[in-house]
């Protein structure tokens, strides 16, 4: 602690050095006094900010956990009454169908359909909430193989539709294989669904380097597309850009894709235009190191 000319005190860093002549004789001392108040102040500020950040992170983690368990218990506890609505409506339909007029029969039918729809929404919400809590098991994943498997599975339900698949080279990447498969399933089945309006659907899956550490995979289709002004809504939970009569679905697919990719440290984005198809991109960390390690041991 030193005193300034005006009498105020300041924190100082003082260096004292002995001054010697060429022959090594001590001729005096040099003293440098540095006012380090600002530096100390800055260090303290940094420390304070760090503590603040730590606190925020802890709070965020806690509220995240709370939100997850809230979503879970809502979904879970909603299932029981819903099962009863569906169950009893069905019993009513079976028991009283012949004594009901057309209008009443339609009412019962609507109750059943709505209960089913709510069941689907709850199940999706439940799966989505589980996804947020599941551990991401990172290892090398053969994307090419994942895509092939998914196309084989999805193709079973496409009947005699004419779909031109174009699969580019997909490198190994680093991630949780079952979660990444879910990403591909969602994107590919979306592409299949939204190209239903085409006599000949074209779906392309490929990959490009985003930068040194990341790769970016895309799924492109020539389907219904979307208006870019709603692009930010695409990845929200239960957000839909089409009517249920046009394209079925609850609107959880792309939210699932985003959540998985975010948990892998990647990003999602989409490009499209109404009636001109859509392209969905997701980025992932590259797996070169992991791939090399696996290759040398196998």
């Amino acid at each position, binding site marked *: 602690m030193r005193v300034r000319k005006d009498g105020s005190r300041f924190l100082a860093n003082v260096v004292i050095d002995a001054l010697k002549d060429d022959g090594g004789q001590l001729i005096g001392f040099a003293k440098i006094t540095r006012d380090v108040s600002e530096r100390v102040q800055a260090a303290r500020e940094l420390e304070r900010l760090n503590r603040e950040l730590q606190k925020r992170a802890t709070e965020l983690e806690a509220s995240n956990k709370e939100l997850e368990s809230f979503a*879970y218990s809502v979904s*879970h*506890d909603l*299932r*029981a009454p*819903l*099962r*009863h609505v*569906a*169950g*009893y409506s*069905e*019993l009513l339909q079976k028991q009283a169908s012949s004594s009901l007029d057309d209008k009443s029969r339609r009412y019962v039918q609507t109750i059943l359909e709505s*209960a*089913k729809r709510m*069941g689907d929404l*709850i*199940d999706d919400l*439940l799966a989505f909430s*589980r996804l947020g809590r599941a551990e991401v098991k990172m290892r090398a994943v053969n994307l090419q193989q994942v895509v092939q498997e998914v196309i084989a599975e999805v193709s079973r339900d496409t009947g005699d539709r004419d779909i031109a698949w174009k699969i580019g080279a997909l490198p190994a990447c680093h991630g949780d294989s079952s979660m990444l498969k879910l990403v591909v399933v969602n994107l590919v089945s979306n592409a299949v669904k939204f190209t239903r309006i085409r006599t000949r659907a074209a779906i392309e899956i490929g990959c490009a380097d985003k930068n040194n550490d990341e790769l970016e995979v895309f799924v492109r289709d020539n389907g219904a597309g979307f208006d870019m002004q709603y692009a930010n809504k695409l990845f929200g939970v239960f957000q839909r850009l089409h009517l249920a009569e046009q394209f079925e679905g609850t609107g959880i697919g792309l939210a699932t894709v985003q959540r998985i990719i975010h948990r892998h440290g990647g990003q999602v984005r989409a490009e499209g235009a109404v009636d001109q198809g859509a392209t969905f991109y997701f980025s992932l960390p590259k797996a070169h190191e992991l791939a090399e390690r696996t290759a040398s041991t196998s």
Partner: protein
Amino acid sequence: MSTLGRILIVEDDPNDVELTLTALGEYNLANEVVITRDGQQALDYLFCRGEFHARPNDNPAVMLLDLKLPRVDGLEVLQQVKADARLRIIPVVVLTSSHEEKDKMRSYDFGVNAYVVKPVNFHEFVNAVKELGVFWAVINEPPPGSVKKPT
């Protein structure tokens, strides 16, 4: 099918009880069904005590057990049953709304014989209950000591 085993249902929700019975009835599974409405009552039944002190001391062929129950919960019932020399041989099927991994893990840890999540869809629920009833009370040979009723 010469014999039918007794089914013990442990379920607090009256609607679920009715739907379960309807599902069993739809497939003419005319098994004897005993219903207990919470974990404590289920344990009293199994250990032949309290209101059940006078019942013949025999085991059901299968127990369908809900997890979320008043007083004593399903996991506690399961744990006590599997810790008892006479009761541990009863096949226990957890029939629950819970997909929770920790519920599944703990159930299997305690020695549950099957874990079934109640489907929301009534058709699937009926099918699940029917298959459980058929498998455990008809197809499966229950442990000796469970009284079989000739039909």
